[in-house]
């Protein structure tokens, strides 16, 4: 999910890296362009333009950070899951998110940056993660809603990246998409139980969660196409395959029916079927809120980062001890 990197790049600056190419590099560039045009995959050791490498590194590492930070809002409910079954499911899901972060860090490392450098960029606030994880999980229904809506939006966003021109990223995405489908289904299933067999309070809790998550989920797809200046280059490189607005519309269209079956209302009075477009029309998104959250002013930005930094620092002695043990064993074997 969690691939807002290309959209936030323009505002953060530093996205451009233009320099004069030598004749050799120009030839390489032409070959690279031809391969992209032919739909070829680019492997990590192949020649690639600096900007392609930089953009991918940015996007993949942000994607990885999002998976890891994304463990926090859901981890918040593991110890309070209502049944053992739901607890086991939630544990498996949060473990998956950790795994997804690892696949993606590994893919990003093939571009020539170290894991520690990426983690340092996250912890120092230099690197971002998806805006969605800066919202709090206030009730148990938030967990089901995250699965249904947040992971639903993520799948919509991620499926096209399985065809990304950069092969290590594409391979990681194929693996992730295969696992993500369970995330969405378990969320919907959990909400369905509450809506069909729950008390009025439980039903109200589900509706409340949907009300709070709906708009932030629509923001996940990034700014409208006409305000997404780096999209064209991303499309040219085969990094981005489908535009923000197209994906967002697809998500809305798919979700309206699911909401109906569930028996919840989506919190948008302007939501209505457009016969002519054959799509659902929806109301205006509060982009000021999006940029505030991206800029660090969301409800949980500070808490999320503090938790990650603390986990990293608390784990430092474990990492050091494991390495010391490994070195000692290696020395013993050599002796």
């Amino acid at each position, binding site marked *: 999910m969690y691939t807002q990197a290309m959209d936030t790049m323009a505002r953060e600056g530093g996205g451009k890296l233009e320099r004069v190419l030598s004749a050799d590099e120009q030839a390489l560039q032409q070959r690279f362009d031809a391969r992209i045009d032919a739909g070829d995959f680019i492997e990590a050791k192949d*020649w690639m333009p600096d900007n392609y490498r930089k953009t991918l590194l940015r996007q993949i590492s942000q994607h990885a950070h999002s998976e890891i930070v994304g463990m926090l809002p859901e981890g918040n409910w593991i110890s309070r899951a209502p049944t053992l079954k739901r607890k086991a499911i939630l544990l498996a899901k949060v473990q*998956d998110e950790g795994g997804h972060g690892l696949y993606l860090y590994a893919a990003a490392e093939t571009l020539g940056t170290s894991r*520690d450098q990426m983690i340092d960029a996250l912890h120092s606030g230099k690197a971002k993660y998806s805006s969605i994880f800066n919202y709090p999980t206030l009730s148990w229904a938030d967990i089901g809603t995250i699965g249904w809506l947040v992971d639903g939006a993520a799948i919509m966003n991620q499926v096209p990246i399985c065809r990304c021109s950069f092969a290590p990223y594409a391979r990681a995405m194929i*693996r992730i998409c295969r696992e993500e489908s369970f995330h969405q289904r378990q969320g919907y299933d959990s909400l369905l139980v509450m809506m069909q067999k729950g008390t009025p309070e439980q039903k109200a809790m589900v509706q409340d969660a949907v009300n709070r998550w709906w708009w932030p989920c629509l923001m996940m797809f990034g700014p409208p196409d006409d305000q997404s200046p780096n999209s064209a280059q991303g499309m040219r490189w085969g990094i981005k395959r489908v535009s923000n607005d197209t994906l967002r519309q697809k998500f809305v269209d798919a979700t309206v029916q699911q909401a109906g079956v569930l028996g919840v209302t989506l919190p948008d009075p302007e939501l209505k079927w457009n016969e002519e477009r054959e799509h659902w029309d929806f109301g205006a998104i509060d982009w000021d809120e999006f940029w505030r959250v991206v800029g660090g002013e969301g409800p949980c930005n500070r808490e999320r980062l503090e938790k990650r930094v603390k986990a990293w620092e608390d784990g430092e002695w474990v990492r050091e001890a494991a390495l010391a043990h490994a070195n000692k064993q290696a020395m013993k074997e050599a002796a």
Partner: protein
Amino acid sequence: MNTTSHEWPLWEVFVRTKAGLDHKHCGSLHAADPKMAVQMARDVYTRRSEGSSVWVVRSDQIVASDPGDKDMFFDPAEDKVYRHPTFYKLPDAVDHM
């Protein structure tokens, strides 16, 4: 917070999905030692019983062909069409041999 020098080494992970098939490369991970690498490979790459065996090998131990020389390196096989069975046109009656 600069711990670059303390980073655990990188390992490549190969998984055999079931008996009778090859081990196939499926990704990489960081681990302090071989035992930890195998255990983490199980947790990261076989959470849904995708594996019946895993190999790990230190990434810095892999010797690979140079992607820059790809064409030169693999060219010699390209003009040897006679290495393929389809090169030989046989009478219809015996073409299924």
